[in-house]
Structures are given as C-alpha cells and as structure tokens.
C-alpha cells in the first residue's frame, strides 16, 4: 500500500548520521521517546480503532476456519466453510453474482456520475452551485427516505410507476415490480445510483474548485481550445488525489449493497433475486447463528473489497503518467 505512504521527507531523527555504536533499534527507540506526546495523543483513538476495526478483521479471518455457533467453543475445520460456500451453497453463488453485478455497474457509473455532475456544477455561479450540490447530495444524507421508492414501484395501480405507465396506455395491468425477478435488480441498481452521490461527489466538487486557475489560462495560450481538452489535459491530472479518494469511497460502497435490497425486495427476496454477499452474511450471522460460516462470508467480502480497491488504486495512479 505505497499509495498511502506519506509525501513528507523522512523523519529528522532517522536522517541524522547514526553514531557507530547505535543500532537501528536504539535510534528508533530514541525517536519514539522523543515523540511520547504524539503516541499519547493518538492512543485513545488507536486503541478503539484496534478494538473495533483491526481486531474484528483478524477474528473474522480466524473464525472463518472454524465451526462456531456462539454456544460451544469454536472448532477448527480448515477450509470446510469455504468449500461449502463455493461448492455447495447455490444461494451464495447468486449472492456473489449479484454483488459483482452491483459493483461492476453502480461502482463505475456512480463514480462517473459523481465526477461528471461535479464538473458541470462547477461551471455554475456560486449560488446555483450550492443549490445543485444540495440537490445531488441530499438523497445520500436523507437516511431511510429511500423507502419512498417502495411507493414509486408499488405493485398496485397507485404506485407512481404503474399509475404513470397505465395512464399513458403503455400497459394495462399493474406490474409487481419488486416481486418480479427480472425487475428487482435494475430497480435496486437505480435506487443505489440515486443514493450514491455522497462523499465522493463532495470531494470532486471541492477538488474542482482547487484546480489552479492560472493553469487554464496557460493552457488556453498553449492551444487548449475546448472544454474537453481542458478537462483531459488540465482538470483531470490536477485532481488525481481526489479521483483516487473518490474511487475508494464509491467502490467500497458499491460492494456493500444490503439495506436497499432488504427494504425494497424483502428479505429473503423472491427466489433470492436480490441476495447479495452482505444479505447472505446477515442471514447466517443473525438468523442461523452459523458464525464460522458467516465469518467465511465476511472474509470473502473483505478480500473482494480490499483487493478491488488496491487494483483500482494502482490503475488510477497511472492516469496522466
């Protein structure tokens, strides 16, 4: 993970020419002592971070190799959970297919939408810019208001989608949108996109405002003569850090579809049409109490999320090189 490493010059203490007797370790110890206050300041946060983020990841990986039902002590069973997951659990295969589909569609599309709309909004006057930012950002901070899509895609004539289409004469009978397998996934993707212009979108809005204005002027002199060239040669390269941050935020969220699926399609959904890795995890973790198996699912999800993110970061770093 070198992309997270720091842009700063190396520590002053380490840069000093080492006295012959002092080993690397004693220098390090000295540096640590000198920075006692830094460690004290960080301690409360890092303790909690370790307890509620790092330790659980390690535990999840370990429990994934056991049979564990919360009552008996976990029993080591090797790769059995994983073989069961991939070879015997048909629903998990649906879940993984749906999750990858969501990630492959909502991930890039929401990333692109976040950038494109931030970019268009950036050309507006300040008042209008603030207003449009609010409009685009509002759905993602409105909490459980996405239940409104339940009414929009409600299965009777009073649902907006049905009422509208029947009224136009495009169909005669109301469609049970959320109970019909072929409509469930597209609707969840739509709602997921509606909710997805969040932190990444804000980072892009902010990033666009920090691009050095003089670069555009210099570009115009050097022969940049339309907005697309300006975007490609000046804006995008100047925003690389925000683009990478936005990618992490949008991508990670796109793997974690669950709330929308459960709220709209029900749990379990018709024929598991809307099952995702997370809903599968919820099923085994909170209903069947097969914690070993559920932890294996969590580990697969962890690997998928982090792996994809690291690959995408590596690709994005090459942009403009």
């Amino acid at each position, binding site marked *: 993970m070198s*992309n997270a490493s*720091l*842009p700063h010059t190396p520590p002053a203490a380490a840069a000093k020419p080492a006295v012959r007797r002092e080993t690397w370790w004693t220098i390090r110890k000295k*540096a*640590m002592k000198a*920075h006692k*206050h*830094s460690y004290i*300041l*960080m301690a*409360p*946060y*890092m303790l909690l*971070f370790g307890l*509620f983020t*790092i*330790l*659980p*990841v390690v535990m*999840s990986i370990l429990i994934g190799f056991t049979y564990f039902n919360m009552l008996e002590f976990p029993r080591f069973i090797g790769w059995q959970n994983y073989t069961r997951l991939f070879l015997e659990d048909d629903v998990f295969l649906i879940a993984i297919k749906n999750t990858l589909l969501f990630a492959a569609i909502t991930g890039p599309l929401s990333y*692109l939408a976040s950038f*494109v709309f931030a970019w268009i*909004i950036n*050309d507006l006057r300040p008042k209008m810019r603030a207003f449009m930012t*609010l*409009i685009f950002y*509002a759905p993602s*901070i*409105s*909490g*459980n*208001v996405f*239940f*409104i899509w339940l*009414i*929009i895609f409600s299965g009777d004539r*009073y649902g*907006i989608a049905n009422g509208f289409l029947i009224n136009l004469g495009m169909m005669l009978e109301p469609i049970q949108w959320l109970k019909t397998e072929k409509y469930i996934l597209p609707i969840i993707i739509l709602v997921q996109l*509606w909710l997805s212009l969040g*932190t990444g979108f*804000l*980072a892009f809005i*902010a990033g666009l405002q*920090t691009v050095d204005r003089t670069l555009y002027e210099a570009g115009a002199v050097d022969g940049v*003569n339309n*907005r697309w060239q300006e975007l490609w040669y000046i804006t995008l390269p100047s*925003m*690389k*850090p925000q683009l990478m*941050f936005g990618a*992490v935020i949008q991508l*990670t*969220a796109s793997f*974690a579809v669950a709330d929308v699926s459960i709220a709209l399609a029900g749990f379990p959904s018709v024929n598991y049409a809307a099952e995702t890795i*997370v809903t599968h995890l919820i099923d085994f973790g909170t209903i069947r109490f097969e914690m070993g198996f559920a932890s294996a699912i*969590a580990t697969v*999800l*962890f690997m998928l*999320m982090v792996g994809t993110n690291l690959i995408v970061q590596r690709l994005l*770093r090459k942009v403009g090189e």
Partner: protein
Amino acid sequence: MNNSAFMLRGKKRVNRSFMGSFWLFLLLALMGAFMALPLVYAINAAFKPLDEVFLFPPTLFVRNPTMTNFVDLVNLLGNSWVPFSRYLFNTVFITGMGIAGHVLLASAAAYPLAKHYFPGKTILFTTVVLSLMFTPQVTAIPNYMIMSWIGLIDTYWAVIVPAFAFPLGLYLMKQFMEQMPDALMEAAKIDGASEYRIFWQIVMPNVKPAWLTLIILLFQMLWGSDGNGFIYSEQLKTLHYASNQIIQGGIARAGVGAAVALILMSVPITLFMFSQSRIIETMATSGMKD
C-alpha cells in the same frame, strides 16, 4: 445517461461553446430532476390526505395539503408503550455523544499523524486508509462478540464507542491538518507550549471547517442508526428504528410514514445547507497522495 456527456467529445468547439453548455446543463437538469423528484414526492406525500395517497392516476404534488399525517403520527406515538420523546432523546444522545467523542479523539490522533514524524506513523496511517476500503458489515460478527465481552450490549455505548474510531473522520481530519502552516505550531513551541496545549489552542481552532465535516458525516451515520443490532430494550431504541416500524405498517401508514421520513431527513439536509461551504473546504484536501 452519463454517456451522453462524453458523446459530445467528438464535436470540436471553442472553450465554452453555447451548444456544449446547453447540452451539459440539459443533462444536469434532467439528472437533477431524477435526484430531486423522489424527495419532492416524499415531502408532498407527507401533506397528502388519505384519499390523495390512493388516487389514480397518482399525483406528484399535493392538492389539499393537510397536517393529518403529522397529527396521526403524534397520536400513534402517543399510544406507543415507549413515548416518542424517549426515542428522540435516544437518537439525540447517541448522535451528540458520538460526534463529540469522535471529533475530539480523531483530531487528537490526526494532529501527530499530520505534523510529526515518528516511528510507526506510516503503518498506522496506511492501516486507516486500508480500513476505508471495506464496510462495517465485514466486522459485524466479531464486533458483536467484542461488545458482549466488554459488556456494552444493550447500552447506548455499543453504538457510540465504535463511532469514536470512525476511520473516514480521522483520514479527512489528518489530510486537512497537513495543509496548516507549520509556522503556527513552531511559534507556540518556541514560547514553551506543550504538545497538548498546541493541539488544543492552536490546532483545534484552526481546523473548524474539518470539525463540521466530521460532524455531518457522523451525524448522517448516527442519526440514521437503528442500534446496529446491539440494542434490544425498547426504551433504548432509536428514532430511526421507530420510524422503520411505522413505515413497515404498510399501506395504512403510507402518509404517516412519509411524515416521519420528512422529519428525519429535514435535519441532516438543513445541517448540510448551513455548513456546505466549510465542508467543501475540507473535502478539497481529501485527496490520496502518492
């Protein structure tokens, strides 16, 4: 819908051509309508009398606005075993405590990470960045076990304490602090101020825009929290949980559900409206550097 912005690329135009702007703003307007209409509908639905909710063809805007839904909501909650005010208190308490603790702890941790060079710094920050790459669902099961070991199950703290260590907040705070001029801190150091004093009296007042960002991010998370499965006692449950119970009432509660959703969503949206420029200022430093 997003591709149309790029289909225009082939056409060569001067820097800000009229037609280019026209198509882009049209796209913006269409997408803006898509984003806004469900919310507009939700707001209108909250004021619709029952006969308008079940109207064919369905209408977007309310014709005879009424407060019935809000009155019903008050009655409904007045009859519930746990009074509405208790749900409200629970949510406000969890949100308030979580935000206060997070802003304090995350800033304290972000300051050394941004401004000091000490052994272990890179690995600590790398771990925080890595933790942005997965969602809390991954750690849900072990977290439950840890909560039960330390005896936080069925208390507010099961939701509050993990929020203290929310990784995105530390990340954004650290990135924001990095662009503070070092001279500020050096001057204080020469005057003999301790690290803690520098943090409290120099750094903290200078990162107020970042506070607001952390506040709204955490607000969004905690205000919408349903207890994360840690809270069982009805009297400790959150507003969000109560609202979900109402919404799940189905058709008969459609109007009341919209009313409760309107109340819930208006708070974070208002908060964002007033802090937008500060938040954007923080987000400008959010980038991941090589």
